[in-house]
């Protein structure tokens, strides 16, 4: 029991130390050989404890809690980098533990760049990106500020005129651009939406003064401080991303065997791997970046979670409630 308490105190100290060094270094730290020895000792002690202490075997809640912890440790070690290495040496299972793959719209790929290296490995199947898109919260708001600091907020609705005040006049959003470019025609600047790959979201805004004079201002999402000295208002708008979606197909032997739109919180599971929406081409939206993670050991960890939860709830809540009903 003393050893158990000591190992708990050591883990408290190590966790606090790990919190100070940052996630990346903490991951390396907790996977170092001395820590592997610690994890193994902890798992062994739990197993010995279950076998040696009769109370742990007799009390179902305590048994579930301790056995759950054993499964979490075993699953975690089995799914770790060292665990994957061990599986390769012992059983010849050469599975990618974690990596990334960038796939262009319309093309398919099976190359995964392993995390932390430039080494590439192949998946036994390919992924095709049908489409990648970003969705935004609606409505988007245009923020208007006078040089004296007065502010308004109007929804971005093309063609609708919004009165601001008697002194400020009205404002109207004339056009919304996805990729605004500026060209020259007959010595004049011409603004147009370029259909070629690229992203420069902007708004064309018409300001009508109380006297009836109109002027035009362009608001660029990517350049929020952009304004000219003669501009009456400081304008800015920012679209808040609500979701990233990659429409994927899994291709095996030339056939589409699975299809899924993956989003944050909705990964794709196939062939012992999980695929996550990780990043994207923020310049032109032409490709998506997926995180590829092996599921080795995962379900053992989940089984441990269930047992731990059930054990704690049974031992600390339910058995007392039931015993109260009995009496």
């Amino acid at each position, binding site marked *: *029991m*003393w050893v*158990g*308490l000591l190992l*708990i*105190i050591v*883990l*408290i100290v190590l*966790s*606090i130390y*790990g*919190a*100070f060094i*940052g*996630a*990346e270094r*903490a*991951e390396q730290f*907790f996977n170092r050989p001395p820590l592997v020895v610690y994890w193994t000792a902890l798992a062994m002690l739990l197993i010995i404890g279950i076998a040696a202490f009769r109370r742990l075997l007799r009390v179902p809640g305590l048994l579930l809690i301790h056995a759950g912890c054993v499964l979490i440790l075993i699953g*975690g070690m089995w799914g770790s980098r060292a665990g994957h290495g061990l599986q390769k040496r012992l059983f010849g299972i050469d599975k990618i533990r*974690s990596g990334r793959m960038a796939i262009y719209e319309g093309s398919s790929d099976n190359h995964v760049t392993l995390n932390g290296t430039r080494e590439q490995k192949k998946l036994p199947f390919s992924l095709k990106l049908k489409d990648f898109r970003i969705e935004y*919260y609606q409505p988007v708001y245009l923020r208007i500020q006078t040089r004296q600091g007065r502010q308004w907020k109007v929804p971005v609705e093309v063609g609708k005129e919004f009165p601001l005040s008697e002194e400020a006049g009205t404002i109207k959003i004339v056009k919304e651009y996805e990729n605004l470019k500026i060209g020259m025609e007959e010595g004049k600047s011409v603004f147009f939406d370029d259909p070629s790959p690229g992203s420069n979201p902007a708004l064309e805004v018409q300001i009508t003064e109380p006297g009836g004079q109109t002027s035009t201002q362009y608001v660029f999402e990517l350049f929020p401080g952009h304004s000219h000295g003669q501009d009456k208002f400081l304008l800015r708008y920012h679209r*808040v*991303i*609500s*979701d*990233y979606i990659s429409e994927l197909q899994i291709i095996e032997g030339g056939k589409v065997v699975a299809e899924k739109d993956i*989003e*944050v*919180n*909705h*990964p794709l599971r196939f062939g012992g791997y*999980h695929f*996550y929406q*990780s990043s994207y081409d923020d310049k032109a939206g032409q490709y998506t970046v997926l*995180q590829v*993670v092996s599921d080795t050991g*995962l379900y053992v*960890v*989940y089984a441990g*979670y269930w047992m*731990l*939860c059930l054990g*704690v*709830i049974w031992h*600390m*809540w339910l058995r007392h409630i039931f015993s109260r009903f009995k009496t």
Partner: protein
Amino acid sequence: MEIKYTIQGLLIYMTIAAYLLAFVTTVLRRPKAGHALYLLGFAIAVCAFGYRWYHVRHVPLQNLFEVFLCLGMIYPVSLFCRRVLRVGGYSADMLIGVIVLSPAGFIFNAEPQQLPPALQSWLFTPHVAVYMLSYIFMAKATFQAICQLAGKNPKPGEKLLPPEEATYRIICVGFPLLTLGLILGSYWGKLAWSDYWGWDPKELWSLASWLVFLGYFHFRYMFGKKHPRINSLWAIAGTATIIITLLWVNLSRIFSGLHSYAT
């Protein structure tokens, strides 16, 4: 420090005032009036939370302002502890209510935010709500632990548990919630960030707080009530790590990580 001249701010200040009045009235031995004021404060706190929910159009548990607003609804926990667990500390709960609502009223930014994609999950509400509930229980346990250290026992006629046992009972209620919060967070991390354990500072601090209470149970199992002061110190240490997990990790630049949106 900023005063919020909004309906939201007004509701928070009214709750704080009601809780403070309830505390003063209870200390002045007017328990019935104190209870009525406490109940009134809770009703206003529910209105403040509901108003925020309506305003931001999602369960308001996204940032520290919303989380502290939620923690202000402490009354049902007080009632549960009193009626079911036979644990006192009613007037201290009123002060806990004031303490948790003050940062929401005077410090944290109340600007509504839209949920980033990672937070759009069915796990968002249970994960945070379960943690908040466990934190309230653990705060109450700490008050009992402090009473034990200070040698304060309930009056004989009150039919309440002595502080050491009260601490244990409350931790027995809070610990499964803490476990559930940790596991739900881990499962959610797997869905959103591809790993059930990311070694993020917030994750490590929450593991540390869970382990401190685990240490408490092991120590208490080994020695029972032989060393009540050390038992109490374990409980206080657990709540100290919870405070660090909840506040320091989010507010300090030392611990930047995946949970930084929660400030």
